[in-house]
């Protein structure tokens, strides 16, 4: 039988295995640039989410609904709303982001895509932490984007003034990134286990408290006319720390998940 039966592949597109392992030729297949790998990871996440726009709308809708439950269960007079507004908005945003990130790695573990990611990271020399960071970044856009888009409307319902709204949006942008990072690590730890979504929430909620505290305090301060720079910079510092620590821990968690 003839050797080279490659179906439909144009000449020059694929090299034979012998060339690949011939040290004299020095053809470097195992270490291309990192960009294609990371771009593939990010694009897959993005394309999959964009094919299901209903999910994105649902994140925003969930946020609006939870925020609406509080005035419904309390006195909706302006003074109470002013008091409740920052806290309610932040809790609703927190829940929406956590819900969105809960099953981040579950399907990929089951389908074997995580195996391919781990193998590709080993072969290409890309640290798995970078792959995880790329996914976290895209997940932030997908989880926080809808919430940030809808936040001004909900803020109107609570009578937030312009300054407070600006601080709310800035705080949400930073805080949701921290939450996505923490929730991604939790999702990686719980991937494939029974009750993964609930387990993720249980693990993340205590660690989400500082974000909630600082974000709500910032909006409270802005409502009263005081500068909120301290709280916002604390959120920024937390984001910097989370961006360094969480991808590494997430990579560890994913490795242990694929080893099982």
């Amino acid at each position, binding site marked *: 039988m003839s050797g080279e039966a490659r179906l439909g592949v144009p000449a020059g597109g694929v090299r034979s295995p012998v060339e690949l392992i011939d040290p004299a030729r020095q053809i470097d297949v195992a270490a291309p640039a990192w960009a*294609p790998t990371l771009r593939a990871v990010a694009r897959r996440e993005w394309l999959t989410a964009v094919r299901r726009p209903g999910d994105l709308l649902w994140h925003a809708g969930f946020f609006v609904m939870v925020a609406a439950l509080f005035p419904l269960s309390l006195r909706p007079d302006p003074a109470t709303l002013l008091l409740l507004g920052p806290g309610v908005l932040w809790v609703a945003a927190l829940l929406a982001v956590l819900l969105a990130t809960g099953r981040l790695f579950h399907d990929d573990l089951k389908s074997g895509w995580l195996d391919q990611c781990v193998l590709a990271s080993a072969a290409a020399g890309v640290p798995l932490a970078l792959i995880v960071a790329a996914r976290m970044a895209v997940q932030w856009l997908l989880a926080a984007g809808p919430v940030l888009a809808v936040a001004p409307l909900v803020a109107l319902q609570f009578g937030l003034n312009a300054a407070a709204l600006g601080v709310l949006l800035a705080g949400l942008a930073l805080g949701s990134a921290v939450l996505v990072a923490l929730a991604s690590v939790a999702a990686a730890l719980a991937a494939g286990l029974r009750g993964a979504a609930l387990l993720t929430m249980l693990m993340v909620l205590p660690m989400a408290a500082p974000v909630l505290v600082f974000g709500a305090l910032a909006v409270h301060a802005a409502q009263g006319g005081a500068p909120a720079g301290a709280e916002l910079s604390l959120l920024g510092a937390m984001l910097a720390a989370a961006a360094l620590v969480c991808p590494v821990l997430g990579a560890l968690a994913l490795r242990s998940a694929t080893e099982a």
Partner: protein
Amino acid sequence: MTIPGAVSGRGQGGSGALLTVVKLVGERQGLRLWGPLGFELMPGRAVHVQGPNGCGKTTLLRTLAGLRRPALGEVRLPVPCWFIGHATPLAEDLGAFANLRLWLDLAGAAAVADAGLHAWLRHWSLPTERPVRQLSAGQRRKLALAPLTLAARPLWLLDEPFDALDQAGCAWLAQAAAAHLAGGGALLLSSHQALPEGFPPCEPWWLGARGARKAAAVAEAA
């Protein structure tokens, strides 16, 4: 009785071997599955790992690919390899072309041109844009095996590749495997069924209680 293939390669420092395994032992939930194993996979060698359900074929393949740490021993994998597992690593909502493109980009084979992917999909009459979840199991299995011919790598580790594959698919895989072996590659696959017609001959390896016993007997004799 010594096994010629096992002894001759040892001691040469693994030169030219596509996969080297030393004192490998596999376990699951605290029970020993297989081992200790030691072998070298030279170019042109094909191995068919067989055994009853639950004997650890998938565990062996994952350990060889580097996904799973062995209980004892080490695996040396000096060359790039394709590990195609039992599940299909496809995004359900994306089309076949997008899936292949993303997979190849991830695995470091971004150099493969789009035209090649389209030609491959045309050959198998697979729709490029329809979501993969609407394809049949056999079509998805073909998609999962596509990277083997689209981007050549010296070593193939395949876990149950014939699952759900129709006759044309099996014939294609047989042809691709033969070409791969002739070109100096190596192949290790697991399947609980017999190999289909036309597949290049493989050394059969048996896992399970029988294999473990045999391995111990050979170790004593060696």
